[in-house]
C-alpha cells in the first residue's frame, strides 16, 4: 500500500526560499527512489493564506499520511495544521514551530534568534565593544522579527549603537538603494548587518561603489554559497557567516519518510544551531550545486 507525504513550503520568492524549494524537490526525488512505497508531493505557496489553502487541498483527498510543512508564519498555520493532524496525519514542522507544540510529531527547528545573536556577538568581539552599525531587515514577519531580536540581544551590554534599521524586503536592489542612502546619511559606519544574504550582496555592491573606507564589516546570514565563498577566500569585510541552511527541509523529509516506512520511528525535535562559519569550517557549509 502506497503512502503519501505532502511537503508544503513557501514559494521561491527570494534566495533562501528558492533554496528550500530546490532541496525539497531534490529530496522528493531521492525519497521516491529510495522508498518505493512512498510518494512525495511538493507544493509551494506565496502567502500564509495560500499555504493554508494548499494544505487543505492536499488533505481533502483523505489519503495524506504525512505532512512536512515549513510554515509561512507560526501563528496563522497552527489551527489549520491541527485540523489535519486530527485526521491522523503525521506532522513534521520545519523552521518555525507552531504555537501549540503538541501538534508537531517531529520538529526540525532552525534558530533565527541565534542567527542574529551569533552575528552580534561576533561584532561586539571584533569592534571591541563599541562602534556604530546599520541594519537592513527583510519584510515584517516572524523570522525577520526574531533575527532582529537576537541581534539586539547580542549587542546588549556593549556600547555598539544601532544607527538605523530599515526594511529592504529581502531584496538585493532595495538593499543596494538603502545602503547607498545609509552611506549618504552617516559619515561613519563601523559595520553593516543585513539579516539575509540576498540583501548583503546589494550592500556590498553599494559599499564597493562608494569609496568609503570606514566600514569594517558587512555581514549577512543564511549561508548563501556566494557569501561562503567569500568567507573561504578570507574576505576582510565578510569574514564570517551564520548558516541557516535551506537544506533543513531535506532533513525533515528524510526523517518523515523513515518514520512512515517504519524503519526509524522518530518523534520530538531536532534543533539546528547557528554556529559561526569561519574560514576554517566554511568548506562544510559549501554546496556549489545548490542554487542558494
Amino acid at each position: 500500500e502506497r503512502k503519501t507525504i505532502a511537503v508544503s513550503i513557501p514559494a521561491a520568492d527570494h534566495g533562501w526560499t528558492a533554496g528550500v524549494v530546490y532541496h525539497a524537490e531534490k529530496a522528493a526525488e531521492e525519497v521516491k527512489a529510495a522508498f518505493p512505497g512512498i510518494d512525495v508531493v511538493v507544493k509551494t505557496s506565496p502567502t500564509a493564506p495560500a499555504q493554508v489553502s494548499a494544505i487543505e487541498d492536499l488533505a481533502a483527498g483523505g489519503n495524506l499520511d504525512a505532512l512536512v510543512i515549513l510554515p509561512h508564519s507560526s501563528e496563522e498555520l497552527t489551527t489549520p495544521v491541527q485540523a489535519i493532524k486530527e485526521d491522523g496525519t503525521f506532522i513534521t514542522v520545519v523552521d518555525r514551530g507552531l504555537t501549540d507544540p503538541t501538534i508537531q510529531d517531529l520538529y526540525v527547528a532552525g534558530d533565527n534568534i541565534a542567527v542574529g545573536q551569533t552575528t552580534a556577538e561576533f561584532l561586539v568581539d571584533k569592534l571591541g565593544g563599541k562602534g556604530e552599525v546599520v541594519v537592513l531587515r527583510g519584510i515584517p514577519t516572524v523570522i525577520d522579527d526574531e533575527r532582529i531580536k537576537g541581534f539586539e540581544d547580542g549587542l546588549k551590554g556593549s556600547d555598539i549603537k544601532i544607527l538605523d534599521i530599515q526594511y529592504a524586503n529581502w531584496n538585493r536592489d532595495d538593499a543596494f538603494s538603502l545602503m547607498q542612502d545609509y552611506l549618504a546619511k552617516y559619515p561613519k559606519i563601523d559595520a553593516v548587518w543585513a539579516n539575509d544574504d540576498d540583501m548583503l550582496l546589494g550592500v556590498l555592491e553599494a559599499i564597493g561603489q562608494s569609496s568609503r573606507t570606514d566600514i569594517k564589516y558587512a555581514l549577512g546570514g543564511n549561508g548563501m554559497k556566494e557569501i561562503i565563498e567569500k568567507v573561504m577566500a578570507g574576505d576582510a569585510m565578510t569574514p564570517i557567516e551564520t548558516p541557516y541552511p535551506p537544506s533543513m527541509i531535506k532533513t525533515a523529509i528524510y526523517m518523515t519518510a523513515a518514520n512512515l516506512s517504519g524503519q526509524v520511528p522518530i518523534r520530538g525535535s531536532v534543533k539546528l544551531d547557528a554556529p559561526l562559519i569561519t574560514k576554517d569550517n566554511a568548506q562544510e557549509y559549501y554546496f556549489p550545486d545548490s542554487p542558494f
Partner: protein
Amino acid sequence: MTDATMGQVRPERRLSVNWVDLGPFLALAALMVVGFLINPDFLAINNLTNVVTRSAFVAIIAVGATFVIASGGLDLSVGSMAAFVAGVMILFMNALAPELGTSAIPLGMLVVVAAGALCGLANGAITTIGRIEPFIVTLGTMGIFRALITYMSDGGTIPIDRSLRDAYRPIYFGDVLGIPVPILVSLAVAGAGAFILYRTKFGRRCIAVGANEEVARYSGVSVARIRTLAFVIQGICVGLAAICYVPRLGTATPTTGVLWELQVITAVVIGGTALRGGRGHIWGTIAGAVILEFIANLMVLSDFVSEYLVAAVQGAIIIVAMLVQRLSK
C-alpha cells in the same frame, strides 16, 4: 423595419441575476470540466466546499470593488485595509475579552465594519475632494494601511485572544444546513450588493457616474457623493471580509491580504465588469472570485507543473478564462 434594427436592447432586469453574467459562469463550468479531467478529486464535494469557502474573502471584497469600478474608480488599498481593520478588530476584541468575555466578538464585528467604512470614506474623500486619480490615492493609502498594521503589530503578528478563539471559530468553520458560513455571508453580501446596485437609486446613479460623469452631473447627480459612497461600500465589504477571515488564521499580520487587490480586481473583470466603469455585474464578480480560487486549487491538485512555473500556468489560465467569458457573449 423590425425592432431588431432599433439598437441593441438590454435584457430586462426582472431577475437580479443578469444574463450578461452568464459568461463568467461558462468560464467557471469550463474550468470545472478541465479540473475534473486533470484530477477527479477536483469535484469531490469536500474539495468544492473548501475552495468556495476560501473564495469568500475575495468575493466579499470584490462585491464592494464592483461598486467602485462601476462608478469609475479603482481601489488598490483593499488588501492592506483588510489587514489593518482585522488588526483593529482583534486588538479591540482582545481588550474587551477580559471584561465581556465572548460578547466582545459581536462588538468587535461592529467596530471592524465601522473601521472599514471610515477607511473607505478616507479613500473616497481624498479622491473626490482632491480630484486625484483613484489609482494614486489608493496606492498611497495602501502604503498607509500596510504601515499601520505593521506598526500595530510591531512587525510581528496580532493574534486573537485564546479565550475568544473557540467562540469565534464557527464564523469560518461552521455551517448552516451544510453550507459553510463564509459562503452564506458572501451570498448575503452579493445579494445585498445586487439589490443596491440594480434596485436602488444609489446603484443606478453609481453606474451612471461611471458611464458618463458629465451627463450624471448635468442630471443633478452629485458625482463626488456617489463615488465616495462607493468607496464606503467597498470599505464595509472589506470589514465583512475581515470578520470571516480572522477566525481562519486567528491573527492579523503585516502580510495579511498582500496582493488581494490584484485578485479582487481580476475577479471583478473576469466577472464581466469593465475597468472603465459604467457597468457592474455582481454575480459575475462572485463567479470570478470562485474561478480564481479554483485555478489556485487546480495548481495544487495537478501534478505536471513544476513549482517554479505555477505562476505562468495560472497567468495563462486567467487569460483563457477571460477569453471564454468574452467569447460566450
